[in-house]
């Protein structure tokens, strides 16, 4: 990604100099964490390419789409129904950020002891370093956790934010609330795009997103093989890219990757020796370019075979029922699918415990690493429940609470190494 994009970035009002610096650092970081891996799949070349063009080609595609009248919607949560946006001819991109960027600007408007993910996306905005944010025609927030909820109030001082009310419980009244919110969102999306959403366009959109979910489910199933044919780092990247890449192209490319993986599984070829400790990550999401945890785990004698998180199965586990025919029943199908999401913002969220145990068993893991971002209270409190549930199932758990800085990498490596020794 060279000076060829400078003009585009300037038009988007980015701080081009700082942005170029950021990309250099990112490039080096990526090299250390990803390119240093041995035996990578050919299919990962696509991901390497996408990452290298993360603020370049993909942004250009978005700009071209906008020039044709398409609208871009930015979101921060897997709860926002992408199908609605796609059905209206729009493009949805995830804006969650995974780097310590613009921290001093962010800390002018947010307290220092705020979750790193929140400070990051606010920092990207205030530092004028994210072309995705600047390309959005509508930014969608939601009432999930306290931090995000109040951060959107601050963010909206710089860029308007449409806030969706996400239910906190799963009683019938809450489903009603959510259905109303989906319809309200639909109206807002129609207004922004100028396009009416029909049952047909919804069906097409659902097919797209379901196919993407299916290919990621297929990928996850292939990781149950021993030895595992792909690293956790690579899968995390794939999941992260799924939030902003073109759905059709992405699905096709990952399908090809899965074909390659099947060959590997058939020939018993793994990305690490057969007896490498298999671990699963659970908890808070990891936004790009936050690759810290799988990097630490995979440098400490273990390999990551699954993610129970918004950048993993929480996002891909459930499909939307494609049998619905009428507009209302299609909306119901969408509503029902999203209500299955087991984020810690929900209470009591006991289904998450079952999902974690089941997943750990299916993937034949020796242990689970629970990941909490510092200051995230919902996941911190749930970690206790998860630990108890896993203990009853005879599966050990390591709880890690950290942020984006590299300060505690050595300490974390020690803990993971000790945990790996424990699980042998």
């Amino acid at each position, binding site marked *: 990604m060279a000076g060829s994009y400078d003009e585009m970035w300037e038009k988007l009002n980015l701080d081009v100099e700082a942005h170029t610096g950021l990309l250099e650092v990112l490039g080096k970081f990526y090299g250390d964490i990803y390119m240093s891996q041995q035996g990578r799949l050919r299919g990962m070349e696509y991901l390497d390419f996408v990452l290298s063009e993360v603020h370049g080609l993909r942004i250009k595609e978005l700009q071209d789409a906008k020039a044709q009248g398409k609208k871009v919607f930015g979101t921060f949560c897997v709860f926002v129904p992408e199908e609605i946006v796609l059905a209206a001819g729009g493009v949805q991109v995830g804006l969650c950020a995974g780097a310590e960027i613009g921290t*001093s600007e962010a*800390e*002018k408007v947010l307290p220092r002891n705020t979750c790193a993910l929140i400070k990051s996306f606010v920092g990207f905005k205030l530092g004028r370093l994210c072309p995705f944010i600047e390309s959005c025609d509508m930014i969608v927030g939601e009432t999930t956790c306290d931090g995000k909820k109040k951060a959107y109030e601050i963010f909206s001082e710089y860029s308007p934010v449409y806030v969706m009310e996400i239910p906190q419980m799963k009683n019938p009244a809450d489903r009603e609330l959510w259905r109303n919110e989906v319809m309200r969102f639909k109206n807002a999306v129609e207004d922004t795009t100028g396009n009416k959403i029909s049952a047909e366009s919804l069906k097409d959109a659902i097919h797209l997103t379901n196919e993407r979910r299916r290919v990621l489910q297929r990928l996850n199933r292939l990781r149950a093989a021993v030895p595992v044919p792909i690293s956790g780092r690579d899968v995390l990247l794939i999941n992260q890219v799924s939030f902003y890449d073109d759905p059709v192209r992405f699905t096709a490319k990952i399908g090809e990757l899965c074909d390659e993986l099947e060959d590997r599984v058939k020939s018993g070829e793994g990305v690490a020796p057969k007896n490498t400790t298999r671990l699963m990550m659970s908890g808070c999401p990891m936004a790009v370019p936050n690759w810290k945890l799988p990097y630490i785990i995979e440098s400490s004698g273990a390999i990551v075979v699954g993610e129970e998180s918004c950048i993993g199965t929480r996002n891909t586990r459930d499909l939307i029922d494609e049998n619905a025919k009428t507009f209302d029943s299609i909306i119901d199908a969408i509503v029902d699918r999203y209500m299955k999401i087991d984020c810690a913002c929900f209470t009591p969220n006991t289904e998450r415990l079952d999902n974690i145990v089941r997943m750990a068993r299916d993937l034949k893991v020796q242990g689970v690493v629970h990941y909490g971002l510092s200051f995230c209270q919902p996941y911190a409190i749930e970690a206790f429940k998860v630990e108890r549930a896993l203990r009853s199932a005879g599966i050990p758990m390591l709880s890690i609470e950290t942020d984006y*800085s*590299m*300060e505690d990498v050595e300490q974390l490596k020690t803990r993971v190494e000790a945990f790996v020794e424990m699980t042998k």
Partner: protein
Amino acid sequence: MKSVLNHDTVAGIDIGSRSIELVVLNPDGLLHRSKTSTAFDPVGQCRRLMDGVIGGRFIATGYGRRLFAESFRDIEVSVITEIQAYALGARFVCPEAMTVLDIGGQDTKVISLSGAGKVRKFEMNDRCAAGTGKFLEFMATALQVPLESFGDFALRSDHRIRINSMCAVFAESEATSLMAGGESPENIAMGLHMGIVQRTAAMLKRVGVSAPLVFAGGVAHNPCVVKLLEEELGQAVMVPEDPDMVGAIGAALYGLNGRVP
């Protein structure tokens, strides 16, 4: 101790955790200034400092202000906080001062002033040593460099490295491993100075920096910190002739012009 009650003169005394400063003023000007270290006996040190000093009312500020008031009941003592004292003192040494930064031995303060010189906003860090003079003292000892020349030492670095640790204790470990890895102590010192300046700059930006910025307190003697601050903030930093005295001057001024208790 001799102290003649004289309604014209006012003494300002700043009792900090590391040093104590004394200033005596009357409406015509400065009559006396002196300082000493707090050591472990602030009251005794105060007594020694005050010996032979002709002063009327005393205005005490700093960490030990209440201790002073309680220990010297035979003289007229009022207390004000260091925030107020530094605001007044900074305006005295720089009549247009809009922001005051004080990095002391054990705490760091940023004060934002209004056009009229009133305290508009302030922020203090007195919880974590990493943003204070203590950090530099600790590191200078670790690198076996005298504290007074630590700044010049750091300025001799030939390239800038980053010290990641926020915590003083971990920063020392990081410094040690860098030394073992062959990094020069000058470069390490520079990295440590950059750390404290970054933390200070973050605090300044939260409160809001308007020029002129007056840099007071013990750490203002450190030329490396001054240089890095100017770079980080993109503006000149004004260091008064005697940065340690700013608090005591402000306290005395309060006695001369402020509300009489």
